[in-house]
């Protein structure tokens, strides 16, 4: 019998909660998506509480990629776990980001209703909650967000937002603020415009947060389920007088959902 869940979420301790009602006796196992036989990874120490199963996934050897979640009944027969829950619980993400980790797990419902786990190797980064694009008459881009998958930062020392000209040697820094794990800062755009190199039609500046102690985290928006933000999120730009030519600068998300600034000659390619 297929096991049907109506709630599937993964908490900050990588415990998979499955609300399955009465699933009968059995065990949970994982198998690399796309493999039909063998290679079962049994999940130990699954706790049953009310109509829910709580399965600790921390420490399981899950390589990057997708994993089928299976129910193994008393006779050793396996059946897929189905779910009606799309698996997106945005309010859980803040707690998930708070813990240092090298592997991120997400519960995903495929178009056929099967529950999958998606495992991804991750690095500490700076999750962007909000970008304040340049408003007319101002010449800064504001950013704020939280440290993700990183240990708590040192209190001593001065954090900074760093903009690095991609493929070139320009570096622009500005002071940032840290309040616990929350960061904020503003990137001044004048120095970017002044370093505009017209021989490159697109001058990209990648944004980083430098923590006290020197570690640098890339600014990115990875917490939600939107895979490709480059075309989906659009920020306005502003025009500054660069070294003689007007330069248009705007924030944008890269194909990797990282936050960068794009400077182009005004009236040129966008």
């Amino acid at each position, binding site marked *: 019998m297929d096991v049907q869940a109506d709630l599937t979420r993964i908490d900050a301790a990588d415990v998979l909660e499955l609300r399955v009602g009465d699933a009968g006796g059995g065990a949970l196992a994982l198998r690399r998506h796309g493999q039909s036989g063998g290679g079962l990874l049994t999940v130990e120490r699954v706790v049953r509480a009310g109509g829910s199963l709580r399965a600790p996934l921390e420490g399981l050897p899950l390589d990057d990629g997708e994993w089928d979640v299976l129910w193994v009944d008393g006779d050793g027969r396996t059946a897929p776990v189905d*779910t009606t829950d799309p698996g997106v619980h945005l309010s859980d993400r803040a707690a998930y980001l708070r813990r240092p980790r090298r592997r991120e797990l997400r519960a995903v*419902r495929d178009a056929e209703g099967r529950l999958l786990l998606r495992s991804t190797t991750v690095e500490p980064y700076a999750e962007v909650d909000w*970008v304040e694009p340049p408003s007319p008459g101002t010449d800064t881009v504001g950013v704020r967000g939280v440290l993700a998958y990183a240990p708590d930062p040192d209190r001593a020392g001065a954090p900074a937002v760093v903009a690095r000209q991609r493929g070139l040697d320009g570096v622009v820094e500005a002071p940032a603020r840290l309040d616990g794990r929350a960061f904020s800062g503003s990137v001044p755009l004048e120095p970017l415009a002044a370093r505009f190199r017209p021989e490159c039609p697109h001058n990209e500046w990648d944004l980083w947060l430098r923590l006290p102690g020197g570690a640098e985290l890339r600014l990115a928006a990875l917490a939600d389920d*939107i895979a490709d933000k480059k*075309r*989906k999120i659009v920020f306005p730009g502003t025009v500054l007088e660069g070294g003689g030519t007007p330069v248009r600068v705007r924030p944008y998300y890269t194909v990797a959902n990282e936050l960068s600034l794009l400077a182009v000659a005004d009236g040129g390619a966008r």
Partner: protein
Amino acid sequence: MKIAIVIANAYGLGGTVRTVYNLAEGLAHHHEVEIVSLVRHKAEPFFPVPEGVRLRPLHTIGAAAGKAGDAAGDAAGDGERGGLAQAWWDRRARAVVPEPERERNKSYTAPAVHGLRRYLAGTGADVVVGTRPGVNLLLSAWTPGRVLAIGQEHINLDEHTPEVRAAIARRYPRLGGMTVLTSADRTAYRDLLGAEDGWLEVMPNPLPPRRLPRSTLDNPIIAAAGRLSPVKQYPKLLDAFSRVARAHPEWRLRIYGGGKGEEKLRKKIAEKGLSNQVHLMGRTKDITGELAKASLLAVSSRVEGFGMTIIEGFSVGVPAVSFDCPYGPREIIDHEGDGLLVPAQDTEALGEALLRLVEDREARERMGRQALVSAERYALDGIVERWEAFLERRLAESGRRPRSHAVSGR
């Protein structure tokens, strides 16, 4: 029964194509079903052809026509006689299908129209169902007496040009019956055609039986869906959503759909300072999967011929907040039951209603539960039964009797 559904182009991805496939899937359980496509522009259709349904293209156009050339090349290959035949069929089609309809849909090619005439003359179908005005007009003119011709309308009468309305008034009475999507449209057609009740039926688009997700209604997401065109009035939705965006900065508006209006809308989003909160999600193949991540569905259209998105939202337990615009929303949404209706074009009221359900989770959950119940009215099985009963009545009243057909594999 043997049922043939004639569609302009069954290989594309439009809403009509999707609903025709759904209906064909349901009818195929007990009947022999064939989808006849005037043209075919690619080798495989965008949506998979339902099990047990036959797809019959009449004219291959564009790149799919192969190296021999394009649509114009077809007749050229036949030499002068083919060219004359083409011109003759082109004239015959023009005599029946008005210019605005030919402009709106490019499927009325001479070979396709000729193919349809030949198909109708030889078909073993008991019933042929047309799916847009040009096709319905051709069926009214050319369907032989032994076959019942039904015209299905996916577009409201008021949205047709005067030329198309005039052709409908002149020729539709020769059809054996017709169906529309809403009661409002039934009234409009009854006034135009003076049709009897049994001849003209409301037949909503069905929801196919699928394993559907269900929204947990806990994400701060409002969804909207439909192509990025002026009729959807997304700039008004941006204004309405601004109200929510100011009061609850964590809420997001996700707009699903593609189209020519994208660049303009991108500019509007940036201008209104909603860059962080409004996302242009593009087209999706799994619309119910995406809607199930949301907690509300918003509809800001000038008109909605039906409102398939509202029903898709209902089917995953998401309540709708909509302008009370013509025609579909007020027939689908039970105000305060499974969603909220606000006066059409009243952007302020739309924002107010969205804000109310953003802030009142309990009401959202109550309406979400009711939405699931409402969605059952559109379940494929029930809609198919209504179609069967309608077709049988029309066959009986017109003195035709369906021949018995063996249905393979059922």
